[in-house]
């Protein structure tokens, strides 16, 4: 994406809807969701419409539309269609260039996916996670590898032009060879986009608990790093662009425009329980992670906000670095200075030179770009570089 485009993004918002229900919780998942329940879903959906019409400024110009969860395909496609219609009426959707919905295999069939396409979604993100049944069981996924492949094929068949494919590595008991097979199968299916991320043991998840007590064991860090490099090697040699730590696309046109909102600190508005929002300037806020409270607050006419924060210049700089160093285009230090008033010190320049010599990044005037190896150290580099920012 060109720099002019990123300028334009400032005014156009990414719109995110969180669907907070699942048939069952996957062992590793730390996103907010409850067990699916028809009545709760009904109340949620009414509240979501209310949040959209009462708490999002009218006529807000949008660039992307994204439905995630949870398992959004548990909701009737007709309701998603209604949501889109309400959005069209209330906000400015003329500039929308990407509409994504996440789906879990085994929750959607041909008819279903066809209706979603008809409802206006043009990008389908499929939570495949693994193409090996044992791994899927370890992750606690409610579907088989066969069903996952079938969902992708069906999505293609009904006419989705942009398919994304989630793949997890570093699953307990997974070997490098097994992951190679997963990757090869993914490449054979040829989705436009692959999200390939290492299993993280988030605090509070069942997987983290099982790992702590030793019931399951992740592959060694060395193996996980080899898996990262293997994914890079296999996917890039098959035409994929490695454009973010964990994301690959068949060409620039297939990168996730919506996710770039997060990585480039462009504004986004999140609706639904636990959804996060950012005004593109200094303010972040997020909704309550509780379905009942979400419904109740909206009923009382209050925005369902849990908390807000206004970033300090240093926090802003840290975020710009932390997120910018995740993507292949990196971050422009002149832009960081323009947004935060903080400049890199001469000592910081020396530190950058060291990082370049270590093969972590490239420097082109004010733009620093992480290398493939450097992306793996984005957090550490951001943390250290932010120590060298001064006004």
């Amino acid at each position: 994406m060109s720099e002019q485009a990123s300028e334009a993004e400032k005014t156009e918002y990414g719109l995110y809807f969180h669907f907070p229900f699942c048939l069952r919780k996957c062992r590793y998942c730390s996103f907010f969701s409850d067990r699916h329940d028809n009545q709760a879903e009904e109340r949620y959906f009414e509240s979501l419409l209310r949040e959209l019409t009462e708490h999002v400024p009218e006529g807000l110009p949008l660039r992307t539309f994204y439905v995630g969860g949870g398992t959004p395909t548990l909701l009737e496609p007709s309701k998603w269609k209604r949501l889109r219609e309400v959005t069209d009426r209330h906000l400015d959707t003329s500039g929308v260039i990407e509409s994504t919905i996440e789906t879990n295999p085994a929750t959607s069939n041909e008819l279903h996916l066809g209706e979603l396409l008809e409802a206006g979604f043009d990008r389908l993100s499929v939570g495949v996670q693994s193409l090996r049944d044992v791994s899927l069981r370890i992750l606690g996924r409610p579907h088989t590898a066969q069903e996952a492949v079938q969902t992708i094929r069906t999505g293609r068949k009904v006419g989705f032009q942009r398919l994304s494919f989630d793949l997890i590595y570093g699953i307990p008991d997974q070997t490098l060879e097994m992951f190679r097979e997963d990757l090869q199968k993914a490449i054979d299916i040829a989705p436009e986009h692959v999200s390939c991320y290492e299993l993280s043991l988030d605090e509070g998840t069942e997987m983290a608990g099982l790992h702590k007590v030793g019931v399951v064991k992740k592959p060694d860090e060395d193996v996980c790093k080899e898996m990262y490099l293997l994914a890079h090697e296999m996917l890039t040699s098959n035409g994929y662009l490695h454009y973010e730590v964990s994301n690959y696309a068949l060409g620039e046109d297939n990168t996730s425009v919506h996710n770039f909102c997060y990585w480039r600190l462009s504004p986004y508005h999140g609706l639904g329980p636990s959804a996060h929002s950012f005004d593109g300037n200094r303010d972040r806020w997020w909704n309550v992670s509780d379905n009942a409270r979400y419904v109740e607050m909206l009923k009382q006419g209050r925005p369902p906000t849990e908390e807000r924060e206004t970033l300090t210049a240093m926090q802003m700089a840290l975020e710009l670095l932390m997120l910018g160093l995740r993507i292949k285009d990196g971050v422009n230090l002149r832009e960081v200075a323009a947004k935060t008033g903080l400049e890199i010190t001469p000592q910081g320049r020396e530190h950058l030179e060291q990082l370049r010599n270590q093969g972590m990044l490239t420097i082109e005037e004010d733009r620093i770009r992480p290398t493939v190896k450097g992306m793996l150290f984005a957090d550490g580099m951001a943390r250290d570089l932010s120590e060298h920012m001064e006004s």
Partner: protein
Amino acid sequence: MERKTIRNFSIIAHIDHGKSTLADRLLQLTQTVSDREFHDLMLDTMDIEQERGITIKSSAVTMRYPADDGTEYTLNLIDTPGHVDFSYEVSRALACCEGALLVVDAAQGVEAQTVGNLYKAMEQDLRIIPVVNKIDLPSANMDEVLLEIENELGLDVDSAVLISAKTGEGVPELLSTLVERIPPPKGDPEAPLRARVFDSFFDEFRGVVVYFRIEDGTMAKGQSVRLMATGRNYTAEEIGHLGISRVPTPELYAGEVGYLISGIKSVEDVRSGDTITDADHPAQQPLPGYEEAKPMVFSSIFPVSTEHYNDLVAAMNRLKLNDASLTFEKVSSAGLGFGFRCGFLGMLHLEVVQERLEREFDMSLVLTAPTVLYRVTMTDGETIEVDNPLLYPDPAQIRKSEEPYIKASIIMPDKYIGPVTELLMNRRADNYRNLYIGTKRVELTAELPLAEVVYDFYDKLKSITQGYGSLDYEPAGYKPTDLVKVDILVNKRRVEALSMLVHRDNAYSWARNACKRLKEEIPPHQFKVPIQGAIGGEIIARETIRALRKDVTAKCYGGDVTRKRKLLERQKEGKKRMKMVGQVEIPQRAFLAVLKHED
């Protein structure tokens, strides 16, 4: 006040045997504090004291006790420190008393420090009242404990008082026994003033407040007084009694305990044990027993970040106002910048100073490996004292090295004799003896190098004996030794703070342990970090910290940037507590972790 109604006493007890609880109970019973003001562990006023349940500084309080015979007695409780590091202060406090309550836990029996302090009390001819505490415990064994007190300590148990400080049972009886059996103070009220200083502390608003007991003569407000150790004169701006707060009074007489405020700027000018006299009619001789507290353990203190040196200077000077036994001088080090070489009474003292600097002054510090004071005789016959490994001379120039020894006494149940003997042998004990004192308990005595005791000996002893072993020690001169300097190299750079003088026999295990601990404490870097132990150019131990594989959150979408940023912010905060050595960041806690070694 009539002297015959005054009782000056102290409480001798082992940690956890209930000294503070008993003191609290006495304060409540004599209505020195109302229940509303009452706060557990009244006398231990520093946070660190309360947390560790020990008394570091002496303290004193005056109580009024109306006895059954209609007389109102004045009871001065002079509290003593409960840790072996501060035993000098114990002697000073005991010198101000005519009697002591010897408190023994009914379930645990007599402990070594209790014995040590009892001997100090006996040397000063104090009247001792044995008190068996915690008789409410189901595990209390009064008969066995009384037998121990009689056999081991040679005390008459007929006068022993059985109490439960917790429930208050027996405490009223204890009070009447106290006024009956402890004699009133002697001393000549007509003689020139002689008052013994047993404590002093720095008050934000009033300057130094001196606690003392008058042996002879009278002290009056406005009087010109002299501290005999320094020869300096001051005006007694305010004198008074010690309640829970200070109670000013125009005059104090022989036998009384009180305080003095006289514009003294630092506690350094008023040492415990010093004698206050009248400046115009001075006493011929000071009271006996004054000596300067000698530091036993030395370590350098540096700020983690060199730009905080000035804050450290200010903090040290503040601390010094209230801690006369802390000695320090400025040092500089190529790797650590400017700091202070400090002398401490022992490891507890060191830890207390470190904690106070960190908590009260918000400092982030690096302390170098503590060392004792070695004596080194050079080939040219000159003898030097070495308290800093970095100043250790070239071994080729050394004819003889000597190290300080202590005589240790350990009391414990006899079933632990095996492992404790092993501990002593691992710590190079000499002249080892054991003696049964009671049917199931034994006292071990041995001479040990001080260096083997200061770091973690007490913790080890406690853990081996499941808390039942107790330790007391006193200096026992110098003995020849065979020293080597072990350096620790992190990523090929010597870490000055970790250089250590150790006995040759211990060099390998010390180096191995240090490398292992550092490997556990230093977080992985983007490169591999070798950690080595070396004597001169010879590498004697090695560990390697693997390079960091990644430092990034795998998944970053869904918009929750805040949580990830906060994680980095916390890591940045943590880094402020790390010391850069070359390219490697060493967490502050790693410097102390190295000192914990396995036997």
